C-alpha cells in the first residue's frame, strides 16, 4: 500500500534521512523505531509532503505522492498524527474532530465517524465543548488520534503517541491504537519506547542517523541482542 523506495530528505543542508526504503501492506501494523534524531519523524513528514524529498520516491497504491501538493495527500486515506499532538488549541474537541473530516469523502460520513471516535474515546465525548488547548497531555493525544481517525484513514501514521504521557496514559493510548488496528486500519507507528511499540506492531524498522539499520518481525527484533542492548535496556 505505502512504499518508500530509497527516500532521502533534508532540512536545509543537513540530511535527515538517506536512502530509506520501507513498505506497509493493507491493514498491517508497522513500527519505525530508534532514538531521538534518527529520522523517524522526518520519514512521516516525507510521506505527508511536509518535507521535500531530494531523492527516492514515495508511492501510495502506486500513486507517486510527489505529484500531489501536501493538502491532497489526506484524500488518499493517509492520516498523520503529528509529534507533540498539535491539536488546534483554540478549537473545541468537537471542532478538532470535525476539521479532521475535511476531505469530501470523510465529510460525507462525519457524524457516523464521530460517534465511532467517541465510542473509542468516551472521555472526549464528555469533553466535546472544551477547548483542546486546555486539556491534559493524554487527553490531547486522544484528540489528535481521534482527529486522525475522522479522516477514515486506510493508513494511520502516529508520531510518538507516548511522548510526555504518564505511564498509565501510555497504556491507555497503546490499548486504543491496538483497537484501531483491529478494526482494519493500517498503522505506521513511530516510537522511542521500543518495547512498547514491539508489543503492538507486527514488523518494525530500526532507524539510526537517518538510515534503516535493521528490520524484522517484532519477535525477531525483541530477541535481537543489538536491539536489546541499545533500546530495551536488557
Amino acid at each position, binding site marked *: 500500500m505505502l512504499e518508500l523506495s530509497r527516500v532521502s530528505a533534508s532540512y536545509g543542508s543537513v540530511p535527515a534521512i538517506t536512502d530509506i526504503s520501507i513498505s506497509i501492506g493493507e491493514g498491517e501494523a508497522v513500527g519505525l523505531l530508534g532514538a531521538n534524531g534518527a529520522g523517524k519523524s522526518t520519514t512521516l513528514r516525507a510521506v505527508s509532503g511536509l518535507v521535500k524529498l531530494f531523492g527516492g520516491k514515495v508511492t501510495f497504491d502506486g500513486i507517486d505522492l510527489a505529484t500531489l501538493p501536501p493538502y491532497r495527500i489526506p484524500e488518499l486515506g493517509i492520516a*498523520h498524527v503529528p509529534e507533540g499532538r498539535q491539536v488546534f488549541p483554540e478549537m473545541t474537541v468537537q471542532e478538532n474532530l470535525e476539521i479532521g473530516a475535511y476531505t469530501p469523502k470523510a465529510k460525507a460520513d462525519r457524524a457516523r465517524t464521530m460517534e465511532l471516535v467517541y465510542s473509542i474515546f468516551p472521555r472526549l465525548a464528555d469533553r466535546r465543548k472544551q477547548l483542546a488547548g486546555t486539556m491534559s497531555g493524554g487527553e490531547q493525544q486522544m484528540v489528535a488520534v481521534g482527529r486522525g481517525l475522522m479522516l477514515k484513514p486506510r493508513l494511520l501514521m502516529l508520531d510518538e503517541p507516548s511522548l510526555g504521557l504518564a505511564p498509565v496514559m501510555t497504556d491507555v493510548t497503546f490499548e486504543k491504537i491496538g483497537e484501531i488496528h483491529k478494526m482494519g486500519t493500517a498503522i505506521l507507528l513511530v516510537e522511542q519506547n521500543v518495547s512498547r511499540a514491539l508489543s503492538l506492531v507486527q514488523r518494525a524498522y530500526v532507524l539510526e542517523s537517518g538510515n534503516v539499520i535493521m528490520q524484522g518481525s517484532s519477535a525477531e527484533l525483541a530477541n535481537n541482542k543489538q536491539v536489546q542492548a541499545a533500546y530495551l535496556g536488557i
Partner: protein
Amino acid sequence: MWETLAQAVINGLLIGGIYALVSIGVTLIFGVVKIVNFAQGEFVMLGMYISFFLATQFGIDPLVSLVVSMPVLFVAGVLIQHFLIRRVLGPNDMPQIFLTFALSLLLLNLSLMLFSANYRTVHTSYSDEAWHIGGLYIPVAKLIAFAVAMALSGLLWVFLHTTDLGRAMRAASQNRDVAMLMGINPNRVFAVAFGTALALAGAAGSLLMPFYSAYPFVGQVFVLMAFVAVVMGTLGNVMGALVASLMMGIAESLGIQFVGADSGLIVVFALLLLTLAFRPSGLGARRSR
C-alpha cells in the same frame, strides 16, 4: 457631568464599530496569512469612493452600495492574495512588509491622481437626523453604521465557527502545517481570509460615507486605531479586536471630551501601554494552558 460622560461614551462606541470592522480585517489577515497588511486603511478609502461615486452618479444610498463595495473588495482581496502576497510568503517577512506598504502608497497616490485631494461628502436624508433620548444625542447615520458593523462582525463569527471553510481558516491560523495534514488547501484559505478582510474594510467605507468625508488619506485615520486595537485585543484574535476597538473608540472620545479636542489619541495610547504592561499579549490571550 454624567450626561457629558454618557454622551462621550456613546459617541466613542458608535465610531468604535467602524474601528472594529477595520481591525477585524487586520487581525484576520494577520492570524491566517501571518502578514501585516499596512494597506488596510486604503481599502476603507476605496470603499468610501465606491459609495461616493455610486451616490453621485446613480443616486444610490451609501448603505445600499455596501452590496457593491463588499463584493468588489472581496474579489480585489482574493486577487491581491493570489497574485502578490502568495509570492512573497516565506521565511523572510521583509518582502511582505514592503509589499503591503508599497500597496498602501500606490493606492494613496493613485487616488490622489484620480480623485484629487478634495474632501467628498454624500448627503443623505438621515445624515443630519438624530434621536434625542433623555439629554442624549444619537446621530442616526452613526447608529446605523454601528448596528451594521456589529451585525457583520457577528456574521463573521458565525462563519468562522459554524462553516467548514471558516473552521479551516481558524485551523490554518492555529497551525498551518497540521491544517494541511487535514486536507486544507492553505492558498484557498488565505485568499478567502484576505478577501473577507478587504470586504469588511469596504463595508466600513460605505458605512462611513453618510457622515464622514472621503479623501485619499482618510484610511490612515482608521488604520492607526485598527492597529492599536489589534495589538490590544491580541494579534489574530477576532473577538479581541472587536472588544478592543469599541474600547479604543470610547477612550478616544473620552480623551476628546475631557483632555482636549486634539488629545483623543493620548488616552488611546495610554490605555494601550497600560494594557500591555499588565497583559503583554493583549486582552484576548488565554493565560493558562
